[in-house]
């Protein structure tokens, strides 16, 4: 094959969006990806809802527990512990090929086909103009890019108090999915007490989701099977591999899987990309006229540090602090659970203290049942027999609220590479992540306010669980946007400073990480970076 116009590294949300934009612009694209897929469980899962499966499928233990029982987590609060066996390939090979040494930062990375997008909760949020500016993104162009991405992936949502934080300015949204009894009860109470809560800066509404509620092409409308973290059979929830699968039919697109990209070298008329075949251990070389890195903020940091020959250089990093709070709605204890359920967030709660949409904390409200009891029983400080009886009674009333906090650069948050002979890449990331006492207090205050607000709506927090830094799986800011072209920064168009043909399409450039889910913004930015790369020719 001729040298491609572009090499795109990574098949996750940003790689998929960038590749699509490049192809639509007439370029030829080679995508390099490790590309792990689940071939063990995906065909075992029946096309049925959770309750029907539980009552009828004698083989369910394979995909609920895993063939090696990997679905029974040693710890239920660590990063990635909630991955189900059919999603476990998301973290496959990561410990071996992407080692991280840290006592304070536990990131989740992926070498899967579709990357972390396989485990995405599908929440979509547009950033406000002030958030975009602080992140280093240009608001007018991002607004247009948000719409392009929304049209590509399909988003459902409502017009309500969440809209300014989730889907402001987006058109063509599909209707929101139905709320279950747990969340509709909470929403009704919010509607009744709305004014009082809004004066405290608290808003609740329906999240925008990358989920179809109406058929669209080969993708089917959401069927409320509550199996959303096990199966993508009907493709109603957007996953980046859906895009990459579609791109494969274009003769100008080539996917090379099994390759972990290590570094690049710019030549006079091309860029050479050096990889490692994860199956054979052999080194591979790939050439293109331009390179678009979309390996995630941490993966791209590794590639850039190796390529610029300065592994010991320290890079900044951003990650949203995250807590989750199991809650109880006493009025629902002992009630029946309707068969139609969804595992994704049904409501979103925002704390916007001054109403400017500039420094917002976000909570996502879940009431799914497919979590299975064995994942929560060990949390109860009582024996398993009584815990099962009580949890079964309480389960219909359990709501889980996951809270993300906005994050800005600060001291004590850094990455660097160090030589590590035991890794196939001969190096590993050393990471530090700590929050100041002021930041910890601010986040705790926000959580207390959200908990108080929920209590006023009849939702009682049971405990607050802090899985540690890295658990939000939102990473950014390793190569922050800078207009002056300083080393280890990105130009506004995504170009890596000091290079002529290398762009970064993931969140490495974001100088600020709003609490709102970042995936839609990552995809919109990737689209813009690809457009700029096309424009430079």
């Amino acid at each position, binding site marked *: 094959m001729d040298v491609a116009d572009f090499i795109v590294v990574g098949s996750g949300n940003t790689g998929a969006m960038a590749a699509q934009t490049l192809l639509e612009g007439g370029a030829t694209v080679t995508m390099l990806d490790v590309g792990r897929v689940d071939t063990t469980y995906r065909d075992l899962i029946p096309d049925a809802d959770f309750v029907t499966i539980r009552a009828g499928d004698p083989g*369910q233990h394979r995909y609920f527990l895993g063939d090696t029982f990997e*679905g029974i987590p040693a710890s239920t609060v660590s990063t990635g512990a909630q991955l189900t066996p059919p999603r476990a390939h998301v973290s496959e090979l990561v410990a071996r090929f992407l080692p991280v040494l840290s006592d304070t930062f536990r990131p989740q990375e992926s070498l899967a086909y579709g990357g972390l997008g396989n485990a995405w909760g599908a929440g979509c949020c547009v950033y406000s103009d002030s958030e975009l500016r602080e992140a280093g993104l240009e608001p007018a162009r991002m607004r247009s890019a948000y719409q392009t991405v929304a049209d590509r992936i399909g988003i459902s949502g409502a017009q309500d108090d969440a809209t300014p934080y989730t889907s402001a300015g987006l058109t063509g949204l599909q209707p929101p999915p139905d709320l279950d009894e747990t969340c509709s009860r909470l929403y009704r109470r919010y509607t009744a007490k709305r004014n009082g809560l809004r004066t405290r800066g608290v808003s609740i509404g329906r999240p925008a989701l990358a989920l179809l509620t109406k058929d669209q092409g080969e993708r089917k409308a959401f069927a409320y099977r509550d199996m959303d973290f096990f199966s993508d059979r009907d493709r109603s929830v957007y996953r980046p591999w859906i895009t990459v699968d579609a791109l494969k039919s274009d003769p100008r697109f080539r996917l090379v899987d099994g390759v972990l990209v290590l570094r690049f070298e710019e030549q006079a008329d091309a860029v050479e990309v050096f990889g490692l075949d994860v199956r054979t251990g052999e080194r591979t070389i790939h050439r293109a006229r331009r390179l678009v890195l979309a390996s995630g903020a941490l993966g791209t940091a590794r590639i850039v540090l190796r390529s610029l020959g300065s592994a010991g250089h320290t890079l900044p990093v951003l990650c949203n602090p995250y807590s989750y709070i199991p809650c109880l709605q006493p009025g629902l204890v002992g009630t029946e659970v309707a068969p139609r359920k969804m595992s994704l967030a049904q409501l979103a709660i925002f704390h916007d203290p001054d109403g400017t949409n500039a420094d917002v904390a976000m909570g996502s409200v879940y009431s799914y049942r497919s979590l299975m009891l064995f994942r929560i*029983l060990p949390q109860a400080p*009582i024996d398993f027999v*009584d815990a099962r009886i009580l949890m*079964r009674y309480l389960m219909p009333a359990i709501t889980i609220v996951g809270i993300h906090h906005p994050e800005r650069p600060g001291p004590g948050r850094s990455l660097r590479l160090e030589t590590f002979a035991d890794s196939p890449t001969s190096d590993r990331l050393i990471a530090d992540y700590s929050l100041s006492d002021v930041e910890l207090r601010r986040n705790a205050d926000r959580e207390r306010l959200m908990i108080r607000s929920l209590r006023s709506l009849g939702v009682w927090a049971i405990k607050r669980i802090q899985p540690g830094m890295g658990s939000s799986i939102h990473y950014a800011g390793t190569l922050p946007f800078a207009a002056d072209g300083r080393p280890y920064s990105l130009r506004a168009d995504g170009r890596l400073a000091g290079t002529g043909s290398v762009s970064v399409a993931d969140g490495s450039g974001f100088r600020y990480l709003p609490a709102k889910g970042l995936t839609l913004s990552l995809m919109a930015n990737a689209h813009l970076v690809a457009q700029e790369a096309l424009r430079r020719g």
Partner: protein
Amino acid sequence: MTADTVLRDEGERFGRYLIGDSVSPMLVDRYVSAMRSMHVLPEGRDRRLLGLVERHPWLLGVVDGGLALRRPGSVIRTKLLVMSAILEATPDYTSAFLPTRRARIYVVYAAFVGIRAGCKGLIGALLVSLI
């Protein structure tokens, strides 16, 4: 006794404890397989506690409750979690794990279960600290 026999006996004991009835040999085999895969090896105090509940199975609830308070990540709790997960992912026991509608009076039973759990926990915590 071979290691598999020990695990099989343990699986039967834990299954009966968790669900109140004997469990099928297939599920016991699954438990043995899980223990082999997960390399859950008791040492020191866990080994002594396992020996205690082997000799006196009726103490299992108390030991479980005590460990839930004192050492929730202990080997016995991990083993019970595995057996509980195996039972939950079996159609025969679905009804023991899925929520169902309860009459309002059930709250009295739930309160009783909560008090019972507390008592087991307190007695168990004392027992565990002595072993």
